[in-house]
């Protein structure tokens, strides 16, 4: 099990490790102490995943370009 800080994990990493943690807990072949630690890590991972999933906001913007075709900024796009 990698010990990357959960808060720095991508959604994909957090999900993969969560799956692993659940599998280990279900197999029941870890000591009680260890299983408590696993559970805590699993809870953290789950929180991380939930948080990433909550970030599901739609924001659409179009880049504005000057006459030379260089980007100058963005303008919101609506109604699409």
């Amino acid at each position, binding site marked *: 099990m990698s010990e990357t800080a959960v808060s720095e994990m991508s959604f994909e990493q957090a999900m993969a490790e969560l799956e692993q943690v659940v599998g280990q*807990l279900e197999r029941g072949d870890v000591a009680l102490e260890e299983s408590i630690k696993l559970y805590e890590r699993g809870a953290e991972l789950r929180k991380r995943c939930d948080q990433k999933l909550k*970030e599901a906001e*739609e924001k*659409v913007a179009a880049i504005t370009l000057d006459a030379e075709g260089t980007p100058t900024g963005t303008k919101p*796009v609506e109604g699409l």
Partner: protein
Amino acid sequence: MDLIDDDGATNTPEYTVSELSGAVKRTIEGEFGFVRVKGEVGRVSRPRSGHVYLDLKDDRAVIAGVMWKGVAARLQTQPEEGMEVVATGRLTTFPGQSKYQIVIDDIRPAGMGALMAMLEKRKAALQAEGLFDPARKKKLPYLPDIIGVVTSPSGAVIRDILHRLRDRFPRKVLIWPVAVQGAACAPEVARAIAGFNALGPGGALPRPDLIIVARGGGSVEDLWGFNEEVVARAAANSTIPLISAVGHETDTTLIDFVSDMRAPTPTAAAELAVPVRMELLSFVAEAGARMTRAMGQRLEMRGQRLRDLSRALPRPEDLVEGPRQRLDVLGDRLPGALRRMVDRQRLRLSEQAGSLRPSVLRRAIAAEQARMADRASRLSPALTRRVQAERQGFDRLAARLTLRAAMREMQAGRDRLATLSRRLDEAQRARVTGLRGTLEALDRLRETLGYRETLRRGYAVVRGDGQVVTTRGQAEAAHGLEIEFADGRLKLGGGGARKPAKPAKPPEQGSLF
């Protein structure tokens, strides 16, 4: 005269250069005000003005052509050197340089064959460079935060993409507006891809983690911009993973070969771009539930086991009673046992101590000393004997090793030499003695035989004038005579004194003279 000498003796009118140029211009522009010409594109130049200058040629002739800026921008397919084209336009002349050219209104590939051949050539070149190498393809992010879309800002394509993203997992989307057909398409798309890549993490505009280059369906000419090399190279150079979604499923453009993932449609591109949020939510919820359940079961199981074990534990009193009783019994037996033990040990001690007198030890020591002395006394003679034996052996060998034989040989030689020299001496002496004896004998013989002995017996020798005189005549003739007796000589007559010539002569004879 005049008639004959007149060199302008024709009725051909005389033009000025401008007039002639003007006439040519009118004729050409009138005659070729609208033409279609098929040929191969030669050199193409595109100055900053935006106009396009190119040559049209076949194997025998060349016509210069020009395309004004507005026309060039409208073109679906940009002319390239080597392309077979059909150009539509009108001829004009350029009187200042005695030139003519075609002003092109439209130019398009001479049939699909020409276009496709060109595309195949380009594709092969890029493949040879390794731009299609599967090892170059980057993995798409599982859940991109920001998606950059390069497409037309209006139209069905961006709408399809946004709808599908919204259904699956709403994300931040940055649209880079581009022309998706015409001359501007390829440079704008290439610029947009490079532009997204140029965005830094801390810049005013956020950098996307995924790029979608999308366009709806259309004719091959409509999609042509995505076959341009500049677009393919921009896609290949993108460090941000890139999905291409150009045209319908059956359309394949050059960008599809270099993109990290090709989506058959823009909608499919959105599906490739993000996972389905609801599925993930339910996965996470399910994982949480499974985890809690597993933990709960585990705790429950252990709790149960703990209860079972604690029920099976006996009462402390039961554990203690038996041992206590044994303790009592043993405690009673302890003092007696200890005493008996001490007695037994004391007995053993006295038995052992009896045999532990100093005299025993002393005897043992004395015996050992005697043994030692014996050994010691035998040690030195033994060594001496040994040395002697060895020395004798050595001497024997040494004696055999000396010059004894040689010495003996020498001694024998010396003895023989002495013997021989003795024998030599003796022999010599004997010989000398012998010889001396012989010599003496001979000398005696000589003496005996000599005249002197005869003298002793009474004979004498007469000499006259130094010569022995044996006759009377001689004696008479001699001036003087000398008679030798045994005891000396006697001279007769001084210088003539007469002397008896011989003692044997009768003295009367002498008295006569």
